[in-house]
């Protein structure tokens, strides 16, 4: 039986945020998660702008880095972002397909360290880089347990 990467499950679920962006899982190999997505009109800097606000790239970076942690754990277990540092080299363009690659750098004492970058799918130009720190195992329950007992409260 093939076990799907948790990110693939997350991106195809009815998750309120990821379902807005149509994130596409590309691959998971050697602690490296690759995802593509297109910058949506809803993130235009202003109504008439062709540039996506940096917030779009930031949300994608946080999402893909968190999914990278899920991949390493092998489950969608609750995690929490503790620190997020992003450097924005240039804005994504509305309608531009981008590739986000996140690398699981390691963990110690329930803290996971991930680095990531966003590039243009067309010309591979660098759009943004990021470092994320995540707490593994928050008080919330793992996704599977909550689905099995939807009335249960997080502990």
């Amino acid at each position, binding site marked *: 039986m093939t076990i799907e990467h948790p990110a693939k499950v997350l991106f195809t679920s009815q*998750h*309120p*945020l990821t379902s*807005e962006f149509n994130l596409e899982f590309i691959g998971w190999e050697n602690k490296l998660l690759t995802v593509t997505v297109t910058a*949506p*009109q*809803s*993130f*235009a*800097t*202003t*109504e008439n*702008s062709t540039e*996506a*606000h*940096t*917030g*779009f790239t*930031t*949300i*994608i*970076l*946080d*999402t893909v880095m*968190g999914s990278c942690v899920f991949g390493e754990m092998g489950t969608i277990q*609750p995690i*929490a*972002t*503790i*620190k*997020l*540092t*992003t*450097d*924005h080299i240039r*804005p994504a363009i509305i309608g531009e397909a981008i590739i986000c690659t996140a690398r699981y750098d390691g963990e110690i004492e329930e803290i996971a360290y991930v680095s990531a970058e966003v590039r243009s799918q067309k010309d591979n130009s660098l759009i943004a880089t990021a470092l994320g720190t995540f707490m593994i195992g*928050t008080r*919330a*329950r793992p*996704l599977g347990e*909550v689905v099995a007992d939807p009335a249960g409260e*997080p502990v």
Partner: protein
Amino acid sequence: MEDTKLHVANWLNVSASSEPGLFQHRFADHHIGNPFIRSLHGGVTAALSEYCAEQVVLQELGMTVRCRLTSNSMNYLRVTKSEDVFVRATITRLSRRMAFVDVTCWQDDESNPVTHGQCNIRIIRAE
């Protein structure tokens, strides 16, 4: 996609208050990161901080300049709830080409912030 979400301020549901540097976010379901404890997505609070940091610079300098956010460093201090967020953006240093902005987000009480971050912004002035 709804027509009302044509640009980032609408997607984030954020608006400036009458007090300079203070902004209010209105919660929406698409801001949720963990659907089971209904906490906000960490990227959303970061995006909110980036937007408000730019806006406070524009409030200070006027709309004739352009802002390009170069970096953002956020610390997540508390678990968020599926509720509105208040944002206070404070310019700590404003030079001819750069602005350094501290951004604090809270939900119930300003003295118990949920995030704190620093945004660096390149200012591009009209020739």
